[in-house]
């Protein structure tokens, strides 16, 4: 296996290991290490790191986990990630976590925090409210208070106070990571065949599963190796993938898109890892920087209220900027925020004449054949119309 391949497969293993062996080992390597899980979408990872805890992204159970015990706790009309995350907890697989963080992304995640508190009374379980009224003069103060409160609660578990220096340093570490992720995304945008969507997704998700210092080194190495990777240019259509900001589509589904020549050149996959659209403005106070970033630098997302017209406009802008031929809505079954957003986005795309396809997924999906057919038809129809247009002009 080449070095590149082994880096990819290690990333994938880090993401798919539902026993979290590597993280358990990491914790045991040095006394005093802590891990705090966070439920998607966004979490201020730098704050967790500054408080002495490794932020662990909870991506659900993928196709590895059978929801049995959690089935009695969460109804069947709730998204898979919530059910399988609870299952991971109830089967002891998250017992290495020193805490868990939920937030205000949707009512499912919000209420899950309460279910968690009751079922795991020994674990720190925090809930973070992200301000939903950015126009209010009180929103920033409130958010800063939330971050400080969280830091205090974490410190009680880890014994590490978040100082300005520690936070400053942690922001630097995660800024570096986000910059590397942007470079990685740029590879995919420029030459989608150089980095498969599965590989890209595994790298993205593995960011929440490793010591950020080690992960940054991995990303750097990968970025150095990728340009020399032997690969063949492939033809296909370029698409933006939207709607997978929280629960992540199965890897098989992502592979099917590549195979169907639907090349995803921009996406909201694992949005929390790519929460900011630009490098953070840095000032004298790292707390303020983190607060300002939430209001000024975050990508529009349906889990954070702001002008919804701007959200659709941004999707159109992303499609244009990435020279995309269309948009693929890839929505987790029962994910209400994504399902609401779809209707508004759909209207905007229709107005702009941008074709789109909509597919739904679940963690334990058995067959991807119908999605393959839809994706193939979608890309063929785009190619066909493009040829027709060329012939006419």
């Amino acid at each position: 296996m080449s070095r590149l391949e082994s880096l990819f497969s290690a990333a994938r293993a880090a993401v798919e290991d539902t026993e979290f062996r590597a993280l358990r080992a990491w914790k045991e390597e040095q006394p005093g290490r802590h891990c705090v899980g966070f439920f998607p979408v966004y979490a201020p990872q730098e704050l967790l790191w500054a408080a002495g805890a490794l932020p662990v992204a909870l991506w659900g159970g993928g196709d590895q986990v059978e929801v049995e015990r959690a089935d009695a706790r969460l109804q069947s009309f709730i998204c898979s990630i919530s059910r399988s995350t609870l299952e991971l907890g109830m089967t002891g697989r998250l017992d290495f976590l020193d805490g868990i963080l939920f937030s205000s992304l949707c009512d499912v995640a919000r209420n899950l925090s309460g279910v968690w508190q009751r079922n795991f009374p020994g674990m720190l379980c925090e809930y973070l409210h992200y301000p939903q009224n950015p126009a209010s003069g009180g929103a920033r103060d409130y958010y800063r208070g939330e971050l400080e409160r969280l830091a205090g609660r974490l410190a009680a578990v880890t014994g590490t106070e978040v100082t300005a220096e520690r936070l400053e340093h942690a922001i630097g570490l995660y800024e570096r990571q986000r910059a590397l992720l942007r470079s990685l995304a740029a590879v995919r945008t420029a030459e989608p065949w150089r980095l498969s969507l599965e590989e890209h997704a595994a790298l993205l998700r593995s960011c929440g599963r490793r010591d950020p210092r080690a992960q940054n080194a991995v990303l750097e190495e990968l970025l150095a190796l990728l340009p020399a990777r032997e690969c063949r240019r492939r033809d296909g259509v370029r698409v933006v993938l939207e709607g997978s900001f929280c629960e992540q589509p199965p890897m098989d589904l992502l592979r099917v898109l590549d195979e169907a020549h639907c090349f995803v050149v921009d996406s909201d996959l694992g949005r929390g890892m790519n929460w900011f659209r630009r490098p953070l403005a840095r000032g004298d106070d790292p707390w303020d920087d983190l607060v300002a970033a939430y209001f000024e630098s975050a990508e529009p997302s349906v889990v954070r209220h702001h002008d919804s017209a701007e959200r659709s406009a941004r999707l159109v802008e992303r499609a244009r900027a990435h020279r995309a031929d269309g948009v693929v809505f890839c929505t987790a079954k029962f994910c209400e925020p994504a399902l609401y957003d779809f209707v508004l986005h759909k209207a905007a795309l229709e107005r702009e004449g941008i074709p789109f396809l909509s597919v739904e997924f679940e963690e334990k999906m058995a067959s991807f054949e119908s999605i393959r057919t839809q994706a193939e038809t979608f890309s063929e129809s785009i190619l066909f119309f493009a040829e027709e247009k060329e012939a006419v002009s």
Partner: protein
Amino acid sequence: MSEPYLHQGAGQRIQKDLLTRWYRQLEEAPGRGEKVAYLFISGNIGELLQAFGMRLVYPEVNALQCGIKKAAGANILAAEDMGYSGDVCGYVKNDIGLMAKGNHMPHGTQLPPPDLLVCNYAGCATYLRWFEALSRYYGAEMVVLDVPYLQGTEGPAPEQVRYVVRQLEELCRVCERVTGRPFDHAGYRRALELSRRSEGLWVEILQSARRRPSPIDAYFEAVFFMAPLYVMRGTPECLGYYEAVHAEVMERVLRGLGPAAAEEVRIVVEGPPPWPHFRAFGELFKRWGAVCVASTYSKVGGVWDFGFRHDPGRPMESMAEYMLGCYTNRNWAMRSRMIRDYVRDYQADALVIHSVKSCRSFSVGQADLREQFIRDFGVPTLFIESDLADPRYFAAAQMKNRIDAFFEALEHRRVTAGA
């Protein structure tokens, strides 16, 4: 023998008149040059908006009315035709479908479009998504009142109250701009005083259910009794309504009357009712002489029975506390404690959880609640599922079987315990 029992005498009659007038005023608002605000029930700020002379549209109440009048199904289908999924909240779809079909309510009212969308985001994140959509469809301005979820079990934190108060003050500036009228401070405080008094009577009505037999059904009746308090709180009409209902309930107490011919089982109910099948659903409980003595849905617009009142002396702060304390803005530890208190204080025999697919805000966590009540608290608990808006989710035969089996088992348990 006592006189035949009048199911919702004064309560029903006056409420109907009040709502009819309410809807008529809405219809006439544009012609009179009155501004119209849309807002949500949970944590609503009716008194404040009325202090700017605004007329208020509550899309949830419209959805409820469409549900009970059996018009929701068609509205929901219209929204699904626009691209809304079968898996999202039926109230939202009802509203958007209604709008797409011209905004005619089943009783004929033509709803006015919004001049301002006031998204009082208290307890339900779908509220944000709902008004984001309406702001696109109507091209109307949307303001959010961001009400953070409660932490711990002690109620709102001072910084949460401060944040909400600040937003209320900011909203006043917006309302001044939209209506061209200054904020009527004195009128607002007067309204809060009326609210405070209505709330006191409401609590006495609810707490009358501690008696045996209970004079009211705290679910099947209370969900109607609650309407004026949620829709037109802070008006003299609202206060008049609660005086009348209070008098009626006290008379029932004197006569020893209750909603059931004989009160066989006392239940606490958690969750909204299936509006499109409201009567049929109620019958399934009536057959067993089951009377609801306390419910959470009747608190969906506000929780007053643990002492909170709007306070004209603290007009903005008490409004903020009210919003923060809304039932679905309480975390599960608080909700569970509240229900447990109800079971104890109202001497209930069982808990019934009606889980509705539409409303994740209400329902996610209810299955865990069932586990807790059965295993930790030893309270017999029935868990049933359907929907509050979408008629397609009501499986009548299955529902009946579940309910019958539960009450049979409960009866059996009582007989053997008594033997």
